[in-house]
Structure formats: C-alpha cells, structure tokens
C-alpha cells in the first residue's frame, strides 16, 4: 500500500466526494458512498499505522535520550555498565550529547507527540457546515486520532490537563517490548476517548462546538460504518468503537432514507 502522504490525499478526496454527493441530483447514492467509505477506512488505516510507527520511533528516540542522560550522569570510570562504555555506543545513540535539550514530552496522550518529520504535520479537516476542506499545518496530530481537539489545539478555554501521565517514562525499563507498549498506548487512547465522550455533553463555547463536531465527523468518516472495522485486534478498532457512539451528520444522512 502507498505511504501516509497518499493516504492523506485519499482521505481528503473521499471526504469531498461524500460531501458533494449530498447535493447530487437523485439523492445520496448508497452504493457509491459505501465504496468511498471503504477507501476512507483503508487510507485511514495506512495513515494511522504510519503515525503509530512514527510515534513508536519517537518514543524509541526518547528512550535513547533518557539512556543518554543516564550515561552522562554516570561516572565514566564506573565499571557498572561496561557495555555503555563501548565507543560505538555513542554513535548508535543518535543525538546523544549533541542535543542537550530533548523536547519535553508534552502533556498529551502519546499520540500527540510533536513529530520532527515534516510530512505528518498536516491534518485534513472537512467542515460540512461551511463546506471547507482545510489542511491544517501544525505540529500536532489532533482530531483524527485522539479527538481531544480542545486539548491539542490552542484554545481560549483550555480543558483540564490530561490526567494520565505521559506513558513514556513508565515503560522505560530497558529493552523494547513493542507489543506491550502498543497496548498501553491503546489503553491511554481509549482513556482519552472516553474522557472526550463525557466532556462532549454541554458545549457552551461555539469554537469547542465546531471542533468537537469536526472531530466527531472525522472519526465517523474515519471509521465509516462500524461493520468495516477490521477483525484483527487493531488499534483503530478500539478507538473507533468509542467514537461511533456519537451520531454525526453522515450517519444521519444514511438513516434519513
């Protein structure tokens, strides 16, 4: 499958198609929109996999930096960890010693880490009310995966900070337990989604209203029909089930038949 960049353009194309189908003569064509939602799901899966891969790499980087710090704190003549004195080790730890200020892990769920790579800084947002598709350039992946839009985007009414501590330090016990890490990420993810659901009730702030509508829309478009969820224990599957609880304009349109 193509990489994350193609996935993003497919997502925006698909959203435009769904949007324009609402004004087509003859009404919404169920078959075509079902097929478009499949493309959306596939593109989203690829996009999210790429994102998680980046986050994983980012966390590895974090871990490496932490180890670097630990090395720096150690007495170089300390015989405790002979492995760390290997001259090749420094080379294997990128940025070690060169970057004295590693980026502070922000207080968001891990999926919202600022990614140093340029191509994941765009988010595609379709506002069905103003009919505008915008590609947002920033360092955060929001709406699409964590739905904690008020938390990620600059907001005049900031939500309470994420009660979950950054999961990265918890897992740093040396060694890479990739599957366990992912599951823990998932549970944080789930946690953040559950929190969003509870906060979703009364929405006094129109800006918050917009972003939560958009986030609902994006998550619903992202998951499409829940029957499209893959049968494997997928990260996305766990997230989407939470988001599907809220009805968006898309499902209203379908149910309207």
């Amino acid at each position, binding site marked *: *499958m193509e990489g994350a960049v193609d996935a993003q353009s497919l997502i925006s*194309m698909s959203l435009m198609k769904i949007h324009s189908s609402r004004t087509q003569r*003859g*009404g919404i064509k169920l*078959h*075509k929109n*079902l097929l478009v939602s499949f*493309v959306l799901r596939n593109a989203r899966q690829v996009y999210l996999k790429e994102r998680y891969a980046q986050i994983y790499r980012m966390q590895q980087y974090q871990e490496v930096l932490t180890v670097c710090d630990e090395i720096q704190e150690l007495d170089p003549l300390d015989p405790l960890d002979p492995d760390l004195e290997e001259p090749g080790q420094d080379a294997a730890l990128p940025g070690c010693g060169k970057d004295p200020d590693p980026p502070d892990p922000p207080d968001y769920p891990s999926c919202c880490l600022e990614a140093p790579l340029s191509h994941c800084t765009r988010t595609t947002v379709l506002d069905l009310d103003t009919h505008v598709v915008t590609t947002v350039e920033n360092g955060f992946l929001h709406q699409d995966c964590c739905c904690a839009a008020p938390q990620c985007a600059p907001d005049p009414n900031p939500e309470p900070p994420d009660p979950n501590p950054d999961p990265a330090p918890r897992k740093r016990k040396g060694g890479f337990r990739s599957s366990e890490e992912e599951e823990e990420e998932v549970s944080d993810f789930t946690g953040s989604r559950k929190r969003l659901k509870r906060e979703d009730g009364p929405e006094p702030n129109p800006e918050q209203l917009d972003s939560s509508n958009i986030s609902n829309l994006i998550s619903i478009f992202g998951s499409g029909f829940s*029957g499209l969820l893959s049968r494997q224990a997928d990260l996305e599957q766990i997230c989407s089930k939470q988001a599907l609880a809220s009805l968006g304009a898309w499902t209203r349109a379908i149910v309207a*038949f």
Partner: protein
Amino acid sequence: MEEESDTRKINNSFLRDHNYATEADIISTVEFNSTGELLATGDKGGRVVVFQREQESKTQPHRRGEYNVYSTFQSHEPEFDYLKSLEIEEKINKIKWLPQQNAAYFLLSTNDKTVKLWKISERDKRPEGYNLKDEDGRIRDPSTITSLRVPVLQPMDLMVEATARRVFSNAHTYHINSISVNSDLQTYISTDDLRVNLWNLEITDRSFNIVDIKPANMEELTEVITSAEFHPQHCHTFAYSSSKGSIRLCDMRQAALCDRHSKYFEEPEDPSTRSFFSEIISSISDVKFSHNGRYLMTRDYLTVKVWDLQMENKPLETYQVHDYLRGKLCSLYENDCIFDKFECVWNGSDSVIMTGSYNNFFRMFDRNTKRDVTLEASRENSKPRAILKPRKVCVGGKRRKDEISVDSLDFSKKILHTTWHPQENIIAVAATNNLYIFQDKVN
C-alpha cells in the same frame, strides 16, 4: 471471431446535429427483445426509443434487415419526493421485454423508484362513417340525419402507440438497479441496494419483499445488492450480486424470505493485489445467467468471470478486460471513473461474451477458442459496411503504429451498455449518446 460489416450509426431520434451531447440524450440502457426483432434504448431524459428490424427484402437478399425507429415515448418524468426533499431522476435504469404473446409488445422500464409496464401496439385501421359526427369530428345535428350506416374500418398510415398499462410504485426506499422478468411470465423482481421485491405483473398495489439485507443498525452496513436476475428456466431460482464481489443463488421454494442463500459464489481475494481500492474494484456491476442456465457471468471493474452453477468456490473462467488500468486506480478514483458500472452479455449460443471499456472500446471473449478482440465504436474509425479493425492498447514499452497508449485513452467515452441479438450475431453498443449496431459479415 470475425465481425462487422454493416456498421450503422443510428442517432437517438431527438439529437440535433450538435457536437456536444446533451445529458438527457445519454443512453442508459439497451435491450433486444426475445426474438431480436425489436431493440429498445432508454436514456437519461426518461425516454424510450424502440427500433424495429426491417423485413428482409427479396430483391436485396444480401442486405440483411436494418433497424429503424419504430416508437418513441416518454417513459418517466422527473419527480420530487417532498417528504425527503429528494429529486427522483427520470433516467431509465433498465428495460426488460416480455415475450410476445399477442400482436402487441410489452416492456418493463424503470427509473430509480418506479417500474412501468408499457404496451406498444400498432394501429393501421380506423373506423369511418360515424352517424353522429362527420369526418372532421364535428358533431352533426341529429335533425339532419336521415339514414343510418354502420361504420367500417378503413386502412390508415401505420401508427405505433405506447401506453402505460401498469405503474408499480412506492415499493423501494433505495435506488432500483435492476429488474428481471420470470420465466413464468407472470411475475418479475425489482432490486434496489438493500432489497429485492417480487411483483405480479397484474397487481400494482402490492409486492412481496423476498430479500432484505438491511442491517438493524445502518452503521453496520458493509455490502449492498448490485444486481439480480431470474434463472432463465427455473422460475423459483434467482441470483443476486453484491458490492463485495459475491453472488448468491436463492430458491424461492425454501422460504418466503430468501435471506438464506442456497448457493454462495465467491472467489477469495488475492492478498498480493490488495490496495486502497480493492473493495471498489471487486464490486460486481452486472450479473447475467447464460441462456442455457448452467452458467453465471459477473462483471467487476477489471474483469469478467464465468461461474459454473455447480462450483461455488471459484469462477470457471476469468477474463481481463483492461488490466492496464490497475496502475491508474488512484486517478480513476479521483475522476469517479472507478465507479462506472459496466454490463456484460452472452451471445445466443453462450460461446462468446462481450463487455465494454473506455475510449469507446468494447471487448469480446470467445470461450471456446480463448481468443479475444477489442473493437471501437466511433464515427471516425468506421465507415458504413466497413469491417471493424481490432484495436490494441499498448501497455508499456514501444508503442506500435496502430496501438493506443494507456495515457491517451479517453475516459469520458465509455461503453457501459451493450446487448446481443438472441439468435444472430448482431450487437447493439451504446456509446454515450450514440447507438451503434453491428452485424456479422454477410456471406
């Protein structure tokens, strides 16, 4: 197989001589009747044009009967559903003929919501010699009538009239995609995205729902019905295809609601060809039983498959229609061409199958010799009575003189609808707003 001499291009009779095609003139369905004497076309403007084959003339035996316009009528009008604020398109989605049982012809035509039964009959006599009115139709003053006479039928110029005999409406929430007349000649089915309804041709206010795949929660929807057809001989059997690439055969004797299939045809997906668009290109756009009732043919975006009714786990034959498009799926998705619904047809003896493609190309596959040919329906490239030259698409490497490269294909010129005469080698091909009729080489 060698094809074509009598290349005849018959414009829809409503076309003025414009270079552009009015959208209403785009042909949306073509169908021969069961003898091949009549050919019906439906268009986006809701009109039906019926062509009739000329009687073969004894003075010119080498000139086979050609098709001329026989009748034209407005079958469906645009409607508005006030409850849902939806416009209902008048485009004719399908036409199916009923076998002829008397002097008149009957056909079913459908748009997205309503099926209509039309009677097409000839009138070549009219009564003359009325007592109470004169020849102009003016009422005569009774006091001037001195004697009585019996009106007699006098010959007149042939007039073909079409009347709507039945209107079958309000049975479909979703868009009707197909209709199929049963071999019992008393019932027919109409199919939309989620349901199949069984009708009696005589009864318009009631239909039976025999297949319903609508999930309790629409969010769980994963597939829709794309086409359905009755078995040509077994009046209790029908098949329907789905957007997931599967076909279900149902037996109406098993239960009133045929949600449980008696056979399920599906080929497992090849994981090596998986892409973003796998679901779209595996959606079946047309399903047709063979005339002998032993095979099923299905068309998806890139292939045509022939299935043996006795073998459910894989098709008997798979034919690549335009596999060179596999690498262009992303741009075809962008311009919506990937959603085009191509139809497929059998010839009368079930030995050759035909389907359309882009650039006004259509393809024929001989099931016995395994040979295939690509032909083009266009004004520029074919003169009347010229033999059609086979075309070739160059997929890579050096392009030969007559070949066309994939990038020069015109994707706005697509052949979605074709039909084959039930007995002879005559085909009708709809290319946007033009109808092409090709015949086998004479002598």
